[in-house]
């Protein structure tokens, strides 16, 4: 019977789906799962079996400071990115599609440009003898160069710039789904534009902000290149510390433990996101 036949089709198809996914799954198993397990083992076996690496990481002020720095930078970057991205996303959501796709293209293009190149460009702009400071001094606005690099300011500027697309894209999706009539209704009921934003638009766009915000936050946690080049040693983040442990101190046990903690935090945040936003929105909503 036809009903039965239709019913059976997805069951028949399923094995094919798995077969097609095999190469990717094998890649992930070989080059992600296996190394991660090895990493975990290393963190509890080197130099001797036990949890001493974790005790050191949680017990010493230096590492606590690095953890704090990492979360501070990620939080600041996420907040600034959200504030800067929102107007852009709103503009994209209400723009005529033809124009919107051009702006979209520009944003995507910036994502495809080499990260290192873009970070070096910021170095040239931000340093004491850089374009920004030179210009400001030439027109007499400042007499001493502003400290824009080798500190939190430099890291924030460079990272917000890189993270913007990751906030804008999910946000546009959410904002597009909001019925513009709700805003008009708010206006008709006497709400000021700010009230309409605060009480209608902002709450409705929260899932997009949460999705983008978490993506930016998680990416920021593990960032290496930009903080290293634009930050100072007192803004050291976890990724740079791990590199130092692995490359120059050759303390792989400690490095592995730090990397594993970073992974755990990331996964915990992802789980939180799934609960808050829902898996469907996360994977299909963007």
């Amino acid at each position, binding site marked *: 019977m036809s009903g039965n036949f239709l019913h059976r089709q997805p069951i028949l198809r399923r094995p094919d789906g798995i077969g097609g996914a095999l190469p990717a799954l094998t890649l992930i198993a070989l080059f992600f799962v296996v190394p991660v397990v*090895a990493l975990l083992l*290393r963190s509890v076996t080197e130099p001797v079996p036990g949890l001493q690496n974790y005790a050191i990481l949680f017990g010493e002020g*230096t590492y606590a*400071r690095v953890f704090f*720095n990492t979360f501070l930078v990620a939080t600041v970057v996420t907040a600034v990115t959200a504030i800067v991205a929102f107007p852009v996303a709103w503009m994209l959501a209400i723009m005529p599609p033809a124009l919107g796709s051009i702006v979209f293209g520009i944003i995507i293009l910036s994502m495809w440009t080499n990260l290192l190149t873009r970070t070096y460009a910021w170095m040239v702009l931000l*340093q004491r003898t850089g374009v920004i400071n030179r210009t400001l001094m030439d027109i007499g606005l400042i007499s001493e160069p502003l400290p824009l690099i080798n500190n939190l300011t430099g890291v924030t500027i460079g990272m917000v710039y890189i993270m913007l697309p990751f906030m804008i894209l999910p946000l546009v999706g959410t904002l597009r789904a909001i019925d513009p009539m709700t805003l008009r209704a708010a206006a008709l009921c006497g709400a000021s534009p700010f009230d309409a934003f605060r009480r209608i638009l902002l709450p409705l766009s929260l899932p997009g902000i949460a999705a983008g915000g978490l993506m930016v936050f998680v990416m920021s946690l593990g960032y290496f290149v930009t903080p290293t080049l634009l930050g100072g040693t007192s803004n050291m983040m976890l990724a740079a510390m791990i590199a130092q442990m692995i*490359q120059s101190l050759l*303390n792989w046990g400690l490095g592995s433990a730090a990397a594993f903690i970073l992974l755990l935090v990331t996964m915990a945040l992802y789980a939180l996101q799934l609960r808050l936003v829902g898996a469907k929105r996360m994977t299909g909503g963007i």
Partner: protein
Amino acid sequence: MKLILTGILAALLAATAARADEMVFTSWGGTTQEAQTKSWAAPFEANSGIKVLQDGPTDYGKLKAMVEGGSVAWDVVDVEMDFAIKAAKDGLLEPIDFNVVPKADLDPRFTTEHAVGSFYYSFVLAWNKGAVSGEPTGWADMFDLTKFPGKRTFYKWSAPGVIEIALLADGVPADKLYPLDLDRAFKKLDTIKSEIVWWDSGAQSQQLIASGEAAFGQLWNGRVFALEQDGADVGASWKQNMTAADVLVIPKGSKNKASAMKFLATATSAKSQAMFAEASGYAPINTAAKAEMPADVVKSLPDAYVDGQINLDMNYWAENRDKIAERWYAWQAK
């Protein structure tokens, strides 16, 4: 599991491993490796018929991964001497076969059972003449913010040099530097910490000084030499210049050990060392090399500034490397 990870890592790294008539030389890139290629690899290839593949930059983590994973892709590696002493102790290096590598003329300061000298250099005080008023005359001036305001640049990694500079500036006599008084050194460094810009590669140190981004700093003499050659407006003080060395090592398990030994013989020969010194501004580790060099090059090398010169104590550093590094990075992160 540990073996699996290192195995995978090593297998990936070994993708660059050399064939039998080839070997891989790894160094720090930039002008230094170019000079090594020209002065050592080229004549070696011509004489032996063994092709020398260049790789880099040197990465101690990679070196360790290769040796532990049993898949060594590098045959000769240029490393810092304190690392070499430590790595030999950890069993990461092959002993040098001095039947193949003639030892007689090698500077004994830079020769060990597991390493031969690559070149040696001095840390000198260099400055951008446009960015500094007056002339700094010694390390103490780097700590004098009233007389010499502005950013100063130091080597970022935990390595022989900066600690010693701080102690000298604080009045410790040169012959009383070791064992290093870390508390005193960090206290002295605290006084200028906010004005320090760290450099982590030779090229960056040049860029910082040449642009005036940092007014002055602690630089490798070869990098200052290159700046001067390029016509940059820089000054240098050799007072209490500090020597340290790079050495050449063969990672344990190198597949082209025989070729690697022969390469070391060529690289440390008087002629190759002279060529390299002329190209790089770094000093030869072969005592017979000076006779092969033009007089004006000899004059520009650390050898010409032995008065007051300080030999950084590589054995002390090898012994205390981890302990100092821990404090160093903790202090930096503060």
